[in-house]
């Protein structure tokens, strides 16, 4: 198992390099001159040239890419923001906890709502419980989450004045961003849970469990749900990965100082090093979450576990 994890971590390296190249290239071709943006409209041609020189923007594509690679992977430095002139790594380190907290709370909330809803729908297939909860879930996946966020702001902040509309100063601030993200996630998880449970509850071993005299509750939650978990875990992992990349829209609505707002403002300001640095961090997080998902698979399903062990055995023999 640990061998497998190490292997997976090693496999992430080319992916990370690939992402670095891809984002670098995207930014390279993005129109707009950062020097011009930093200095403003009334800078002289010479000032701009000097700034370009200072930022290292005058080199060729390959030179600049090489410099960037060395800076990041050899010196371990994500660089300095063009606009704010501070360390990108520090800024990300300061913002990431906010993004992480919101992501984690939303995912937990989504699972708490979505999983039982999906199970209930599957167990009561084609009854009003199923139809009702699935219609709700369909609403959930169809609703623009930022629109729902705005509606919450209108009702809960502006009219009822129950919750603060922006910032992250108290626990109350987390409610609306997390709920707005969790709704769509919960709906997706409920739909996935239902369809994967429906596959499982038709299996013979579920009848076997019933034939043993097991209670319906344990047949559902012990025998069926545990077998239905794999696609659900994938879905949850995906949601977590995406949210760790910054709930871009939700963060900007609620002015959350997280990774999402950082990236959006950087994209708008042509702050290349910030975009590159944050996307890199996002890609690493995403890769780690996917690895985590695969490890959780192994705990959920002994067949997958034994595959890993087999690989290990084969590797040992070789």
């Amino acid at each position: 198992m640990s061998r497998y994890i190490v292997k997976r971590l090693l496999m992430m390296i080319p992916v990370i390099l690939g992402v670095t190249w891809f984002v670098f290239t995207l930014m390279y071709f993005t129109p707009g001159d950062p020097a011009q943006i930093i200095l403003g409209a009334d800078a002289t041609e010479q000032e701009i040239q000097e700034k370009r020189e200072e930022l290292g923007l005058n080199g060729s594509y390959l030179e600049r890419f090489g410099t960037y690679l060395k800076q990041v992977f050899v010196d371990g430095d994500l660089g300095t923001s063009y606009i704010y002139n501070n360390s990108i790594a520090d800024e990300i380190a300061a913002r990431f906890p906010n993004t992480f907290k919101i992501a984690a709370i939303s995912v937990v909330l989504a699972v708490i709502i979505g999983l039982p809803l999906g199970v209930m729908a599957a167990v009561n297939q084609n009854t009003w419980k199923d139809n009702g909860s699935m219609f709700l879930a369909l609403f959930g996946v169809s609703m623009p989450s930022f629109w729902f966020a705005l509606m919450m702001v209108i009702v809960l902040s502006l009219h009822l004045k129950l919750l603060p509309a922006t910032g992250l100063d108290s626990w109350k601030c987390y409610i609306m961003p997390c709920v707005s993200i969790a709704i769509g996630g919960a709906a997706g998880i409920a739909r996935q849970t239902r369809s994967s449970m429906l596959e499982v509850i038709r299996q013979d071993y579920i009848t076997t469990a019933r034939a043993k005299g097991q209670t319906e509750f344990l047949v559902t939650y012990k025998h069926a749900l545990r077998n239905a978990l794999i696609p659900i875990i994938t879905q949850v992992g995906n949601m977590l990965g995406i949210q760790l990349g910054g709930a871009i829209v939700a963060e900007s609505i609620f002015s959350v100082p997280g990774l999402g707002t950082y990236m959006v403002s950087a994209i708008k300001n042509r702050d290349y090093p910030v975009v590159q640095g944050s996307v890199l961090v996002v890609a690493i997080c995403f890769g780690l979450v996917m690895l985590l998902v695969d490890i959780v698979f192994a705990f959920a399903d002994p067949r997958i576990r034994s595959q890993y062990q087999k690989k290990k055995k084969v590797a040992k023999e070789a």
Partner: protein
Amino acid sequence: MSETKQTDNLVSVRDLVVEFTTDGSVVHAVNGVSFDINKGETLGLVGETGAGKTTIAKAILGILPDPPAKVRNGSITFEGQDLLSLPEKEMRKVRGKRISMIFQDPMTALNPIFTVGDQIAEAILLHEKMSKAESEKRAVDMLELVGIPGERCKEYPHQFSGGMKQRVVIAMALACNPELLLADEPTTALDVTIQAQVLEMMANLKEKLNTSVLMITHDLGIVAEMCDKVAVIYAGEIVEIGLAEDIFDRATHPYTKGLFGSLPSLKSHEKRLHPITGMVPDPTNLPEGCKFSPRCKYADEGCRCQAIPLHDLGNGHLVRCRKEGGEK
């Protein structure tokens, strides 16, 4: 059934009717089936795929999926208790403890994410007053009883072969010494050599534990080997029932005869088998009168217009044919 055996009666099924409703059409899966099984006796339930055999077994155990399945009529009496009117909570105490079931396909009957030991122990824990450790010990004993080394109890189903899995299923079914075992084609999915082993093992265990068995099969060889009585079922109806030797020696219903006729025999010199021509009737639209009449070479107008009652040939041998197999 003769009166003297009444006291030995373990389970009696009367006029059982089961229907499945899907998308507005009604599948008549079981249409008025009655039979008895005495203590220690094995009844073979023989018929084609889709004849309703598994449905009968599931109805006895109360595990028919509802919806779509519904028991429309009839009674199932087990040791004087009507199982159909038993509350779910009481029924759970019967399931797995006093009546248990072996499923057709061992490859899918075991839960892939629990160890086989846990799956056997689960049945024991549910019904016996035992600690977890004791139930595990008993699970190991059960595995050994069916010829699997006890130390394999920590392994998962995917680590077992098909025959081994079926042994595990059998161990699970027998774990609480059930009075009635419903064996749904227990060997169909297995290789012929493994089949023989499993059957022999079942016969031995049955002898040892004095369990009654409802043996569902379409294999007449198994019936000959294992069963005391035989019920031949066609389109959800019993068409012929009686002691095994009566059925084998004096098969009367054209369908039963057809079943024997479609078996290859080494003794006779016939060059061809005699398959039963035609198709199993559509269970949503069963023919009126004798349900076998569209495929029966003896059938006439009389067979097609009225329901045919079971006819007593003596010695508990009943047949649902007004011509008694075309002889009259």
